[in-house]
């Protein structure tokens, strides 16, 4: 395996990064850290956050982050201008001698633009899709069309679950062979079990998520009265905030459950574990989920998991750690009752430490990084498409869309040539990497 020794210079590009918190953000951070450990050079490119956080910052292990001076426009994404980001990104790609551009999240404008420019410059691109999308409503039709353009000649795509892969293949109309499935991972050192935190002689059902419709909070509002009325020793602990908080408060009011339904409000990511370990059962009522890291984190803390059978959820945990139910109040109540019965009878109870151990070995960031490395090795061997091949690809996209797309990449190419003439490559100073210094010294 001589290819595995190949060192890449990877540019992670996405609108979503620290100080913002979320699934995509921590994914980029953790993956970058593990790739750095494997000896690759990694930089992160994102847009500015606030007025102060702009320019270059270094995170742990000298992870270099470029906060580009483009202000966020909508939902933390920059204004889609297609070409305006090109001069700056070209400069960065050349300065840092980037060999692979890795975009994250289909919502991110910056990721799509960065990948477009990278391909024009002949740099291979990888894209990780973190979300699922429908096909029927207007917003998904528009997003899918953008994705089809963006992934049309993307070298390789990574999805977080098999369901997500099917979804992406259909949405972007790409070959399934060019899509790898690499699941998310969990930082097991952050999610350790602690059964002493549980309330003795009581069963606590935990739910930690944003309280929005997509997370199935309406289902939860139907479940709470049914379970609490039947089992006097069961209590609910709910972390998170959002528009649906109100209906939970209503339920609590209506059934007089102030002592048995705790609403903790929004939680910091570091506090999630402290809430999780207080529970016996984690309930996930999501209506759509590409991977569902919440159930992995809970299992990592040694909880029993009850979840709706949607999206990628059934792929994530082995059947003895999770109980799946249809997205209806009755089915979920039934599943919860079975789990409560098991805990009471002491049947099928796996010690939390044992569950933790299994999850710890199952989903590690090191594993994700190794599998991503394989993708990088594969695509760096492939030749990227030249201008003619790209035009041919896009021409097949339909009469109207094809012309628009071809025009878009042609202008991009023209811009590239103008930039090469205005700011010649040789005059751009190469960035010194502190990692090189460290490695040279050793």
């Amino acid at each position, binding site marked *: 395996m001589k290819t595995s020794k190949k060192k890449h210079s990877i540019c992670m590009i996405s609108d979503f990064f620290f100080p913002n918190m979320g699934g995509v953000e921590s994914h980029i951070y953790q993956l970058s850290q593990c790739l750095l450990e494997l000896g690759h050079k990694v930089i992160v490119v994102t847009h500015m956050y606030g007025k102060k956080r702009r320019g270059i910052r270094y995170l742990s292990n000298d992870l270099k982050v470029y906060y580009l001076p483009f202000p966020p426009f909508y939902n933390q994404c920059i204004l889609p201008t297609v070409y305006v980001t090109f001069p700056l990104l070209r400069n960065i790609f050349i300065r840092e001698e980037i060999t692979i551009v890795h975009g994250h999240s289909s919502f991110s404008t910056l990721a799509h633009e960065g990948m477009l420019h990278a391909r024009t410059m002949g740099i291979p691109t990888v894209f990780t899709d973190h979300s*699922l*999308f*429908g*096909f*029927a409503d207007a917003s998904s039709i528009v997003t899918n069309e953008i994705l089809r353009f963006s992934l049309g000649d993307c070298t*390789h795509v990574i999805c977080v*679950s*098999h*369901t*997500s892969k*099917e*979804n992406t*293949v*259909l949405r972007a109309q790409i070959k*399934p*062979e*060019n*899509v*790898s*499935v*690499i*699941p998310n991972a969990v930082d097991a050192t952050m999610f350790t079990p602690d059964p002493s935190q549980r309330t003795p002689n009581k069963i606590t059902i935990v739910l930690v998520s944003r309280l929005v419709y*997509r997370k*199935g909070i*309406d*289902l939860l509002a*139907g479940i709470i009265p049914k379970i609490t009325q039947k089992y006097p020793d069961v209590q609910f602990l709910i972390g998170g905030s959002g528009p649906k908080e109100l209906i939970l408060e209503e339920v609590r009011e209506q059934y007089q459950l102030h002592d048995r339904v705790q609403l903790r409000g929004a939680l910091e990511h570091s506090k999630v574990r402290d809430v999780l370990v207080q529970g016996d059962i984690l309930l996930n009522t999501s*209506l*759509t989920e*590409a991977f569902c890291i919440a159930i992995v984190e809970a299992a990592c803390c040694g909880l029993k998991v009850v979840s*709706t059978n*949607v*999206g*990628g959820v*059934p*792929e*994530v*945990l*082995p059947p003895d750690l999770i109980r799946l139910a*249809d*997205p*209806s*109040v*009755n*089915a979920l109540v039934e599943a919860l009752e079975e789990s409560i019965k098991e805990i009471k009878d002491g049947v099928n109870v796996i010690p939390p430490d044992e569950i933790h151990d299994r999850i710890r070995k*199952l989903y590690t960031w090191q594993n994700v990084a190794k*599998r991503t490395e*394989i*993708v990088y090795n594969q695509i760096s061997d492939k030749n990227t498409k030249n201008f003619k091949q790209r035009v041919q690809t896009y021409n097949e996209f339909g009469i109207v869309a094809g012309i628009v797309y071809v025009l878009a990449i042609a202008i991009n190419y023209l811009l590239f040539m103008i930039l090469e003439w205005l700011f010649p490559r040789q005059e751009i100073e190469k960035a010194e990497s502190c990692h090189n210094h460290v490695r040279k010294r050793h």
Partner: protein
Amino acid sequence: MASKEKWEKVLYKKQNVPDNYVDDSFLRELKKNSNLRRYDYWTTVSQSGSVTQQISSVCIFLMIFIYMDEKQLLPETLFYTTTILTVISYGIYCWLKLPAVENKRTSYDDIKTGVMFLCFLYGLSPVIVSLTETISTDTIYAMTFIMLLTNIVFYDYSPDDIQVARVKGTLSLNAATFASVCLASRLNTTWHAFAIVTFSFEWFALWPLFTQLLKVLYPASQNILTVLLGVTSLILLSTWTTVATIVFLIVHLFINFFCPFWLIRLLPYKNNIKGQWDEAEIQD
């Protein structure tokens, strides 16, 4: 890569295949056009009558306004005729409704609301008649056009439903009321304003309740109503302008006969895909 074990669509197992492996089962769970409904041509024609009924209603309303504006119709005549018709229809409505649905509202409540409404409107009609007087007639007509269009677009066309209390229905009714208030200021006296606003309420709020009940109880009444309203508005229109009459007729024929045909022709092109990734619908 000998397939010793069958590949499973799971992430928690280490399976001896590369990450970009594509199994035969790929996309097998994809469902195409899972809840496809085939339409029968004549049923669709009959159902599309709801749309032309509403267009006819708007047309009749506008013709009544024009008649009053040209002083061919006295407001008193309009008020007394429509009120008597409303009272008669209300009687029939109560008589039909009794076995059909239970409702907490009594006739006493209804009459109280009705009388209160009329009194308030009568008191306010001097205000209404002068409310938009300073706005130019062109603006008024443009606003009326937009509002009546809103009424047609957002009207609740869903069949066999007695409850009209939906957002869509409310928006549509509000638009019609706004249009009637706009038009009222173009008329001369307070009596005129009172009559046209009252008529708009009877016509756009109460009449649909009545026809909806009829449609639920006697589905055949749908076609009779479509023809009746269509012919009435056609006759009223023809007394005023020929061009509008012809356009009206063409629009009616297009919506009632061509659009259903079109829908059925285009149905084979429907390509609706569903799968595990779709946002689950809460079942109960």
